[in-house]
């Protein structure tokens, strides 16, 4: 690469990074501003304050925010776990077995994934109220599965297809049952795929707003994105901008931690050395 090209790559990269990170930086800056400072028109706060954080964690808004945080974590983790487990079996079957309707499973999953959420939320609202799932954890976990399962199945089956058939056959010849071969050889090899899928599924569930606001009414099941929309200012003339910004920052943290934690496992090509170099 020539020097000139290198410079252009840097400039381009920098532009993209600024474009992506500027809103986040803005939110972080906002979250440290005091109420009077919000409309100062400056990027950095005039003397950072933790008022907004104490407001949502211990103050008036904590009643709204803390249960929501708990709900979000619980619901998203359960939905992710179920979706990973189910998609692991489904993807294995799709990658390895030849059964009628295989194509249909995959295309149905795709159709479900592209179906707009907003169009089914009203009927779902009515059904959930009838059968008593409204404003409960399962009432959100089930719709979240419909969001996470299709993409999980697709990513996971791609990972399974990468694993050479011989691995399993070798295990079977060595004396393993199909289940043992799956558990002792295939699952460990697919681990990077499982982690990738888990993270994607978690993000999707974590970021959902439409189901969260429509299918809940109290802090029994309301997730964070919905709770943020219900924040109110000290008076009706005051926007809760600072509190929302602080909550947004807190909500972003688990996502960042998750990615940093599993980054190496995702990147690691675990099948190295399985077959000839």
């Amino acid at each position, binding site marked *: 690469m020539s020097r000139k090209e290198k410079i252009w790559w840097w400039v381009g990269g920098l532009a993209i990074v600024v474009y992506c990170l500027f809103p986040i930086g803005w939110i972080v800056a906002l979250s440290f501003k005091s109420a009077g400072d919000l409309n100062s028109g400056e990027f950095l706060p005039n003397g950072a304050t933790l008022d907004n954080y104490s407001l949502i964690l211990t103050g008036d808004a904590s009643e709204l925010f803390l249960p929501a945080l708990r709900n979000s974590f619980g619901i998203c983790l359960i939905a992710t776990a179920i979706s990973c487990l189910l998609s692991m079996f489904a993807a294995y079957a799709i990658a390895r077995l030849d059964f009628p309707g295989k194509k249909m499973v995959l295309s149905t999953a795709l159709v479900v994934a592209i179906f707009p959420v907003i169009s089914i939320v009203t009927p779902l609202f009515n059904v959930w109220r009838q059968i008593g799932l409204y404003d409960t954890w399962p009432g959100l976990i089930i719709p979240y599965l419909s969001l996470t399962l299709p993409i999980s199945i697709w990513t996971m089956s791609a990972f399974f297809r990468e694993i050479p058939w011989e*691995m399993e*056959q070798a*295990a*079977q010849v*060595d*004396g*393993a049952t199909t289940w043992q071969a799956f558990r002792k050889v295939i699952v*460990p090899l697919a681990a990077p795929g499982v982690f990738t899928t888990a993270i994607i599924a978690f993000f999707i569930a974590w970021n959902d707003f439409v189901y969260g606001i429509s299918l809940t009414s109290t802090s029994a099941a309301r997730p964070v994105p919905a709770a943020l929309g219900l924040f109110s200012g000290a008076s009706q003339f005051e926007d809760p901008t600072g509190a929302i910004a602080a909550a947004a920052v807190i909500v972003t943290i688990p996502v960042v931690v998750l990615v940093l934690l599993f980054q190496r496992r995702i990147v690691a090509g675990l099948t190295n050395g*399985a077959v000839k*170099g």
Partner: protein
Amino acid sequence: MASIEMKHIVKQYGDGYPAVNDVSLDIADGEFMILVGPSGCGKSTLLRMIVGLEDITSGDMVIGGTRVNDKAPRDRNLSMVFQNYALYPHMTVFENIAFPLRLAKMEDAEVRRRVTEAADVLELKDHLERKPANLSGGQRQRVAMGRAIVRQAEAFLFDEPLSNLDAKLRGQMRTEISRLQRRLGITTVYVTHDQTEAMTLGDRVCVLRKGKIQQVASPRELYEQPVNLFVAGFIGSPPMNFLPATVEGNRLVTPFGPIELDEKRAGQVAGHELLLVGIRPEYFEDASLVDEAKRPVGTVFRARVDVTEWLGDSQYAYIPYDAPESITAQLRELSRELDSEELRTQAIVSIDSTSRIREGREAEFWLDTRKIHVFDPHSGENLTRDAEAGAALTRMATEDRLEHAEAARGGQAESRGGATAVGAA
């Protein structure tokens, strides 16, 4: 340890194509059997049917006296080395080799003892705690073999185990496999498309073509008494030369002059118009270097040499010749089937490395006519095959094997009884 018997084995795929077509083959206990043939001949499919990874459409697969058609791979107690080794990358070398034992729920101490023993045999001792990703190709190959020998399997199955190694390593591993098999005395089925491996490793070799057995015999019999054009062309490197010939009384008229036939062979070829004469490269020699005593058993002819290749220990000369259109087309077809591409009709001739025959000049060659074979170009059948002589060669190989096995057993018993456990290595 067990014998493997196949009775009329057929493998038909969904589209009706028979990948393996009515194969019957008996592999004796302790025998080293090679399945060989060009790509797509069904040799790997046959191996996978033995181990149980491929369903058998019809026929019986009998291992150690029991029919195993409906048994799962894990119930057949065979061990297999895959072409790409199929090592478990998330386990250490130790755990890779121990895997079959762990599945059998063997005690830890016993596992350790057996794995260490296998690692000793394969010289993997220093690598037991490493992951397969950090090993070289040859080491990975040895780990795969370790996994195969660590348990008392009925038979070893190899699916082109050396094809991913470079030439030098391949030679080493080949002798290693041979030594191991002789030492353990376990029935072995080995699939390869490499005829050097087939010739050097096998007690007997089974040549397959389009799912059908062509000939099962010792390497020597295959080389000296092939049943047909296909086997003759497949075995031997450089390959056998096929010259068109017409019969005139007791002589064959070839592009390289007439060849006198003895009574017996003349009788065998009588009644055919156009024939193919199969002559191995080493039956030729530079006429000026042939002993006077040997001269009368062959014929001498003059031909123009196209190219010579000097290799130090040997020398090859390429002699182009003309052939009728029908023969040319058929030879081309044959060479395509043997995974090679013969562009022109030429004879490859092996001459002494001291010969001063030059490229582009005419030279005098001598041809030993005693061992030539004559083939029917239509059916491909070898008209001059001496079945008895061939069978004698295979019988000799079998006797050699049994003697060897006996010696190995004796050696083992001795080392077990004696105070010094040197082993039968």
